[in-house]
């Protein structure tokens, strides 16, 4: 029911975005699973690069596929970063699934979008961009809830050998996340200094 509705909404969103030819990367539970850590999710979170296009054009386009703005006005701007929150009710579902499109406005978001990896998702039966593990860890640190920090610690530990630590530490430094990072590092690797 809910899991199929989430997968169906993601599948439909990717289909709707396809004709716009815009770069996108999934950020939520799918991204966490891609990097070998599993937890349930209830919505769809996507990082989207819209270049010079107007957000209104994107919303109008998605509207033709049944996606409706969650709020009015549909674009929320927070500290210069925009997010479009949509809802969509898949056929046979009895609830609206929420889809958050975070527009890649900032340097970090643009960097994360450019570093996305392509994954074939069985649940949606197509190639999908997913944020890289290092960028997902940064997003988790920014979100800052206990569960996000636990996810970040798990992601570092599980993917230690594959992570581009230099890239990760560069964004940790730029975003002033050093203390937060050090804490989750020590949780992941007790007794080891960050290296």
């Amino acid at each position, binding site marked *: 029911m*809910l899991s199929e509705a989430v997968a169906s909404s993601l599948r439909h969103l990717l289909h709707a975005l396809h004709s716009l030819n815009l770069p996108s990367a999934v950020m939520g539970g799918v991204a966490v699973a891609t990097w070998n850590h599993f937890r349930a999710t*209830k*919505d769809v979170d996507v990082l989207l690069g819209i270049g010079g296009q107007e957000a209104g054009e994107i919303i109008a386009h998605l509207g033709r596929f049944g996606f409706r703005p969650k709020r009015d006005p549909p674009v929320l701007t927070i500290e210069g970063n925009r997010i479009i929150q949509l809802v969509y009710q898949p056929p046979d579902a009895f609830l609206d699934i929420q889809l958050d499109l975070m527009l890649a406005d900032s340097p970090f978001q643009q960097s994360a979008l450019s570093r996305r990896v392509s994954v*074939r998702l069985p649940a949606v039966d197509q190639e999908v961009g997913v944020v890289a593990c290092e960028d997902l860890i940064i997003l988790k640190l920014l979100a800052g809830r206990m569960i996000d*920090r636990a996810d970040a610690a798990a992601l570092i530990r599980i993917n230690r050998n594959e992570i581009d630590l230099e890239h990760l530490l560069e964004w940790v430094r730029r975003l002033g996340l050093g203390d937060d990072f050090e804490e989750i590092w020590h949780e*992941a690797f007790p007794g080891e200094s960050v290296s």
Partner: protein
Amino acid sequence: MADPQIPPARFSPLNSRPLSLSQRVAAWFELMETSEQFLLGGIRHRIGPEGDLPHAVRRWYRQQMEQHDQTMIGLLEQLGRRERDCRHAQ
């Protein structure tokens, strides 16, 4: 100093076998389906056998998304402030 709110690393699930990226997502979908059964069971228990399950699930979902919205707003606030501070520092 360790954050007492983060579960110790030894409690974090580890995969016993290497999985491809696609297999990981397939495993995630399985987890989603399983955890959904627990969720529905819990909601049914709360509303009783005669309760309106779809209505209760919609209400639960709305509450979850309100919390999610706060997280997303907080994330974007943090990102915006920290990138601004970074620009000023350069």
